[in-house]
Structure formats: structure tokens, C-alpha cells
């Protein structure tokens, strides 16, 4: 197989010695099926002799069955893994391939090139040291070449090589190559990409892949393999960055040992180094670098180690240990680039989980400043981000985190967003900088708190959150409940959807994004009123589970009671007290819940009212009894 050199047969010990000291380079290949990307990877595997006999047999059989190269071996089939993909003839995911030479081991992220697979390419690029951009010599620089260039530079890849492929089909013409190079350089300057290497190749025929092509003596640069064997590895470069260790796991085998385990995200660390723990800001000195093979004198970026400190200070998972002289920033509001990776769009105001290093916090997007058109690089206004959209957004976290700008450090400046209900990874994010206001706004402590307000009123404040379709009877029932409570001398306030939209929220419409913001504001107002000691009733359709969950989490445990006013769509539509369903059916009202916008029913409401089986009066009585039995009305 690999490394067919005489050394294997003659001196295996020496061979092993050589191969134990080689480095590791990760790279990504960008291009579409037509550019010969898969063929190139197949060719690299073939040239480095990574193919076994049974692979070759399978490949020959596959080539006859699926191939597009007639009787010749179709290298592309080596890398199109899943059965579904072979049938469709496209690559739909990220596949990782391995090969090695005497100088390096290589991990190739093979990702599809079409715009609808932007997220896959971003994923592959996030860990790559280098990128190979495939250009078909017959077609030159295309829209997708520009898109790929933008993405790999956005993700911080510094080593970019443009492989001008299919040179055999343009008679190995230097003129064609030069024109493509000049076109690309003009474009690269626009997006700030520097130091690009150009190599004319034929992946299919093998020109300039491993050995210099006999057909292109006008080209004197490196072969593709030569380039990959010598280009700088990103983690080596990161040793010059300030020391960073995101704490993954606290190691406490017994009372005498407390170690902080993690992978160095930057720099070098040695015993005796002064460190700062972030975000707490406490300082100490590194005592030992502990490994199972004995203590180390130093550890460098990329190594997974366990540190002990000279002082006992409180450190937990998610904290960052940094060089005391060059600490990371700490903040809770950032400007970022988000790459949206899920079918369900980003909605500003909705809460997501944000994972950065080993820290997971709650975050929401406070503003989408603009969306970037990945083909033209134009900035456009956006209210939400759809799958594969890239936008510059401000985000706000529920507590401060330690960070570096992404351009300084990919591991302490790159984060993911996770949907709290589906648990899907929905976005990749790159931190630009902290927003200054996040350092200047502090909570003002007050003396008269919620408990004092509530005591004076002799009640336990809470929110009765009515949710259900338009016309279900939310406002009617909530109004009856408030009248009953008022008659008992309770302090209440009813926030009604239609009324709030005439004032506080009159700037909002009915798009998904505006619905989220509508509920966020109502949730915040309800929270203030609960703080004032009131029993708050809210009557809003509030169709999304996420936002009802967000409102619930603004309050303390037990202060949020979800009341599901359950009416089948047919019944609500038959009632249609405001004539809205008829308008929606005629198409005069867009985004109407139940018609062309979804309603996500509660899964476990505190009170479930079935309006087909009880009158509004009975429903109100049921709700008052529920809160009485739960102790909210105790004197």
C-alpha cells in the first residue's frame, strides 16, 4: 500500500522512525463535481498508494456500474461514499479522507460545491489549514469560485491554492492559465485575500499532482503534493499566539489533587507562568503540567494537557485560563458573523444556546445588521436568516464569557448556536469584537424587591399565560378570570394582544420574526409586573413553543402558568368573531396562524381548557380554582 519504498523491505525500523516524525495537515477541496474535485482526491489517494487490491477491485466494478469515464477508472467513485449519493451522482455531505507521504499525514475534508451546501463547506473549512479551490481551465473563474474564496477566507484559512484543472483539455496552454490567474488575482484583492498559489494541473491525467508535468515546462512552481507537504500548519502558527486553555474538565481524583484539563487553543505554557482565570479575573501561577507519561516542561497549542496551579482558586468547566499579561477579552455582547445551518430560520429575539470553547450559555440575536450575498458579496437588509445565509449580527449573552476575535484565534473566537427545543446545531458564529455597551450597563440593585411588593398585596404574583388560536376565546376567558379575581380584591392586570399591538408593539407586523419580538416584549412587561407583585393575565396567540418557553424562563420557577385555550381550527374558523379567517382564506391577510403560519400546541400546559366541552364561564371558574388550589391566592 502506501509508501512503497525500498525502506519498508530493507529497514522497517528506520522507516518507522521517519514516519513517526511527520506532521499533520488538514485541507479542504472546493469545487463542484464538474470541476473534477472528487477525481483530484481519488488521484491523490492513488498517487500516494493508499489503495488496496480489494479497493481497486471494488472501484473497477463500481466504475463499470456507476462511472462516467467509459472504460477508464472513475476516481470520483472512491470518494462518493453513501449509496444515496452514488444514485444521485452528487456529494451531499462532508467526507473525510486520509493519505500520507513521508513528510505528512493529510486529512482531506471533501465537501460539495453548490450554494445549497454552503453549511457543509463551512464545516469542512472550520478545521482546515489549507484550501484547494478547483477551477475548470475551460470555464475560468465562476460565481462559485468567488463564493468559495469568500467562505474559506471568512473561516480564516490562510493557505489558499487555486488548482487550474483539466489543463489537458486546453492543450496545456500557458495563455489560458495566465488569464485565469490574472482574473482571480483581481478578484482576490477585492476581498482581501493575499498570497494565493496557482498550480496548473490535470487531476485525471496526473499532471503536476505529484511530479512536474512534462506537458507544461512553462510552469516552474511546486506540484500540488509538493505544496501540501510544505505549507504552514495552522496550529504551529498558533504557538506564537497568547496562551489560552479553555477548561474542559476538572480532575479531582482525591483531596490533594486538583487539575484543569483542556486542549491549548493558543500559545505555550510552562510551570511558573503567571495566568489569569477568566471571566473571574483571579490570577495564579502554573505549578505542573501533568500527563500519564510524567510532567512536561512545556505544552504548546494543540496539545491536550492537565494543569495544576500554585493557589487554590475556584475554576470550573467553561472557564478560560489565559496568559496573565495577554488575557482574552470578556464580554456578554458581540458583533459576529453567523452562518445559518438549519431549515428553520434565525429569528432575532429567540433564545438559543451558544457553545464557545467548553462554555455553554444562553444567547439571542439583538439585531441583524445585514446579510451578505455570498455570490456578489453585496450587503442587504434582512429580518431573518434562512438556511445557508450569512449575516453580520449583534448577539447578547446571559452572562460574560472569555473570548478572542475569530481572526486572532479560531478556537476561542468561533462558536455554535444550538436550538433549545430540537437540540440541532443551527449556526456557526465568528466573533468580531465586543460591543462597548456590554461593558457599561450594570444592573442597579433596589431595596424594595418583588417579595416586598407582593407582601403588601397579600398574594403570590404570577403570569397566567393564555395561548391558543385566534378566536379560541382567550381574551373572553381571561377577561372573566380577571373580573373574578378583582371581585376578590386581587391586584391584577390583563395584557391583551390586540391592545398591546395598538401601543407598545405598534411597530411590529405578523412575520415570524415580528411575532417573536412581540412575545419577547410582552414577556418582559409581564416580568416587570410580576416584580411589582401583580397577577398578570396575558392573552396572545403566542404560536411558537420557543417563545412561550422564553417567557417562562424570564420568570422564577412557579411564576408562569401556561393556559392552553384549546379550540380546533374548524371551530375557531366557524366562530370567526372578527372576520379574520375569512380574510385570510381570501388571501387578504398573510401569515395568519392556523392558515399559513403554524401553531405549536403546548405539550404540558398547567391548565388545559377544551372550549368545545365547556363555556367561557366554566373555563374561568376552572382556572381560578386551579390557582387557588396552587396557593397563589393565599392571604
Amino acid at each position, binding site marked *: *500500500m502506501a509508501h512503497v519504498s525500498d525502506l*519498508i*523491505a530493507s529497514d*522497517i525500523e528506520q522507516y*518507522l522512525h521517519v*514516519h513517526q*516524525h*511527520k*506532521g*499533520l495537515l488538514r485541507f479542504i477541496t472546493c469545487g463542484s463535481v464538474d470541476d473534477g474535485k472528487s477525481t483530484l482526491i481519488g488521484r491523490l489517494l492513488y498517487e500516494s498508494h493508499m489503495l*488496496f*487490491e*480489494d*479497493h481497486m477491485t471494488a472501484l473497477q466494478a*463500481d466504475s463499470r456500474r456507476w462511472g462516467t469515464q467509459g472504460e477508464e477508472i472513475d476516481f470520483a467513485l472512491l*470518494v462518493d*461514499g*453513501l*449509496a444515496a449519493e452514488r444514485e444521485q451522482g452528487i456529494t*451531499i455531505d*462532508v*467526507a*473525510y*479522507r*486520509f493519505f500520507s507521504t513521508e513528510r505528512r*499525514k493529510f*486529512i482531506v475534508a471533501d465537501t460539495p460545491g453548490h450554494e445549497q451546501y454552503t453549511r*457543509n463547506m*463551512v*464545516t469542512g473549512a472550520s*478545521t482546515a489549514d489549507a484550501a484547494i479551490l478547483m477551477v475548470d481551465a475551460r470555464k475560468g473563474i465562476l460565481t462559485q469560485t468567488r463564493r468559495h474564496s469568500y467562505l474559506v477566507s471568512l473561516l480564516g484559512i490562510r493557505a489558499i491554492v487555486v488548482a487550474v484543472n483539466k489543463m489537458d483539455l486546453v492543450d496545456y496552454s500557458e495563455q489560458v492559465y495566465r488569464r485565469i490567474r490574472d482574473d482571480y488575482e483581481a478578484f482576490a484583492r477585492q476581498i482581501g485575500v493575499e498570497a494565493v498559489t496557482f498550480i496548473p494541473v490535470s487531476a485525471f491525467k496526473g499532471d503536476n499532482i505529484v511530479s512536474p508535468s512534462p506537458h507544461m515546462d512553462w510552469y516552474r512552481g511546486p506540484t500540488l503534493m509538493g505544496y501540501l507537504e510544505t505549507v504552514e500548519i495552522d*496550529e*504551529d502558527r498558533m504557538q506564537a499566539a497568547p496562551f489560552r486553555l479553555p477548561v*474542559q*474538565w476538572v*480532575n479531582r*481524583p482525591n483531596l490533594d489533587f486538583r*487539575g484543569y*484539563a*483542556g*486542549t491549548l487553543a493558543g500559545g505555550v505554557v510552562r510551570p511558573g507562568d503567571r495566568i489569569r482565570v477568566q471571566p473571574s479575573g483571579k490570577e495564579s501561577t502554573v505549578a505542573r503540567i*501533568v*500527563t500519564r*507519561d510524567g510532567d512536561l516542561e512545556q505544552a*504548546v497549542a*494543540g*496539545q*491536550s494537557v*492537565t494543569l495544576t496551579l500554585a493557589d487554590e482558586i475556584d475554576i470550573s468547566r467553561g472557564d478560560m485560563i489565559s496568559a496573565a499579561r495577554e488575557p482574552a477579552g470578556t464580554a456578554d455582547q458581540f458583533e459576529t458573523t453567523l452562518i445559518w445551518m438549519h431549515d428553520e430560520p434565525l429569528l432575532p429575539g429567540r433564545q438559543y*444556546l451558544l*457553545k464557545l470553547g*467548553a462554555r455553554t450559555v444562553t444567547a439571542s440575536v439583538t439585531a441583524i445588521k445585514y446579510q451578505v450575498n455570498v455570490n456578489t458579496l453585496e450587503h442587504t437588509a434582512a429580518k431573518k436568516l434562512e438556511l445557508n445565509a450569512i449575516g453580520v449580527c449583534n448577539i447578547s449573552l446571559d452572562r460574560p464569557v472569555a473570548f478572542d476575535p475569530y481572526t486572532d484565534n479560531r*478556537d476561542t473566537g*468561533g*462558536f*455554535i448556536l*444550538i436550538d433549545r427545543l430540537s*437540540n*440541532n*446545531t443551527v449556526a456557526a458564529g465568528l466573533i468580531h469584537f465586543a460591543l462597548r455597551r456590554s461593558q457599561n450597563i450594570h444592573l442597579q440593585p433596589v431595596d424594595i424587591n418583588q417579595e416586598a411588593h407582593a407582601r403588601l398585596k397579600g398574594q403570590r404574583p404570577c403570569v397566567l399565560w393564555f395561548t391558543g388560536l385566534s378566536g379560541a376565546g382567550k381574551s373572553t376567558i381571561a377577561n372573566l378570570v380577571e373580573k373574578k379575581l378583582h371581585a376578590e380584591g386581587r391586584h391584577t392586570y390583563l395584557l391583551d394582544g390586540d391592545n398591546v399591538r395598538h401601543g407598545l408593539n405598534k411597530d411590529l407586523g405578523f412575520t415570524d420574526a415580528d411575532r417573536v419580538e412581540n412575545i419577547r416584549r410582552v414577556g418582559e412587561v409581564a416580568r416587570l409586573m410580576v416584580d411589582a407583585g401583580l397577577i398578570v393575565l396575558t392573552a396572545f396567540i403566542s404560536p411558537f413553543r420557543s417563545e412561550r418557553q422564553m417567557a417562562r424562563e424570564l420568570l422564577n420557577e412557579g411564576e408562569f402558568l401556561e393556559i392552553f385555550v384549546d379550540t380546533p381550527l374548524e371551530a375557531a374558523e366557524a366562530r370567526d368573531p372578527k372576520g379574520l379567517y375569512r380574510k385570510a382564506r381570501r388571501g387578504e391577510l398573510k401569515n395568519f396562524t392556523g392558515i399559513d403560519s403554524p401553531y405549536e400546541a403546548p405539550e404540558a400546559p398547567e391548565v388545559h381548557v377544551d372550549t368545545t366541552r365547556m363555556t367561557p364561564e366554566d373555563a374561568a371558574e376552572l382556572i381560578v380554582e386551579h390557582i387557588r388550589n396552587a396557593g397563589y391566592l393565599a392571604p
Partner: protein
Amino acid sequence: MTLTHLQRLEAESIHIMREVAAEADNPVMLYSVGKDSAVMLHLAMKAFHPSVPPFPLLHVDTRWKFREMYAFRDRMVRELGLDLLVHINPDGVEKDINPFTHGSAIHTDIMKTEALKQALNHYGFDVAFGGARRDEEKSRAKERVFSFRTAQHRWDPKNQRPELWKLFNTRKLPGESIRVFPLSNWTELDIWQYIHLENIPIVPLYYAAMRPVVERNGTLIMVDDDRMPLNPGETPMLRSVRFRTLGCYPLTGAVESTADTLPAIIQEMLLTRTSERQGRVIDHDSAASMEKKKQEGYF
């Protein structure tokens, strides 16, 4: 200072294991006693030193492993001071499922795939480490390091979470579980070199020795105990053989070899143009068979 490829692979695997230890509710490490398991266990010992790994080992046993594998397994667990759980599918024992009467497909399905699901359900493990590598087979190349399984243990290749940088999203709903592959980016050569460099103990069956074998359909099968029925006229012959992979002895082909040291094994592997899984009888179906097995819950 430039880290070597083995140092980087080691660091990545340790990072993955610590992430699981920090975020999983009830993790377990699948231990199959083979060379990849040996490397995975060695990395776990490093990841949590001076603590022992904060999870037990689970061996899904089919009752048909080589005797030397059982002896080796028990020795490793004793020496390292680890917890070992052994699960054998009781339904399979009751029906006396075995590779001879029922064939490799049924034996593997009931004693491995079903048994694994049983064990994970029984102990309520939410994350299980496995030693699979992406270079082994095509569908593995596209599988994530953190590979999600539904409550029915099914894998959905079209619905995998993106894995960016060194960030892993480990969140899941109740009943769902994750298979985690810390050796995803290692190749067979990396594994052998690392075993050599780190002096990691492996089952002696990987080294050539005189062993009793019979030849069936071009495959050398070792007669490891007297449960193996011999065909008329078949007598075990002593041959110098070794194994490139280890599994159930009736399903694992031996190769003729005199390589009895690690460098000799690596040398032989490099000079032999046959890839690793050819010794495994279960992989000889169509190209999509592994993908299908994985969707059904095979590791």
C-alpha cells in the same frame, strides 16, 4: 516545536473523551478487546490521569471470541483497575445462536447488534465510545465523531449535525443516545505506529505463531475450541498464522505469516496489498451493506 501527526491525533482523541466525560449523563466505553480498543483504552487512561476514566468498559460478548481475547481482557481490566461490564444476549443463549448453525448474518445481528442495544438500554447509557475509524469503510467516512441515534438506535445519515472546530453539540432528547468515535481520524497505520511507539499491550493473536487451522472457502479458520464442528475429512493443520483483526473466531480469517514483532507486522501490512476488513466475513456483502447495518444500529 512541531507536533507530530500521532501527537495531534492523540490530543484530538483525548479532547473528545474529556468532552464526553464533562457532558454525558451516563457514558460507557465499548471494549472489543482488539487493537483499536487497546489504543482507545490507552488514550482514556491518558485523558483522565491521575484519575481513572470516569466510565465503565462494556464488552458485548458473543461467546465465540478467541480464548486468548478473554484472558487478555480480564488481565487488562485487573491491571488498570477498571470496571468491566460484560453483556451476552440471553435470548441468543437460550436459542443457542452460533455462527455454524445460523450463519454469520444472524449470529452478528442477534449476538452483536441486538445485544448492544439491549446492554445500552439495560444500563441506560446515553453516550457510548466506539473504536471505529473513518478509513475502514466508505459510509464511516461521512459519519460524525458524535453520531446520533434515535431512541430506536437508528442512524440517519442525512440528518447529521455539523461539527465545527473542536466544538461538539452533545445535547439530546430523553431516549436518544450518541455513539462517539474518538479514533475517527486515525488510519490503520496510525494505530499500529502508535501501539509501537507507546508500547501498548495487544492480544498475542496479532503476532504470528503456530496455530491449528482449517481452510474453508479460501479462508483460514482457527480451531480455537472443541465447539467447532469439523467437516468430514477435515483435520486441523498447524500453520504459522496471525490475525489482522479479531472477532468471533469462526468468522475471522487468519493470514499466513511469520511476523512475530510489531515492526514485522507493520512491515507485512505495508507490503501486503489487501485491506484490513477483508478478514472479516461479515463485510463481504454489497458496498452499501455497512451503511444499512449502521442504520439498523450496528456500531
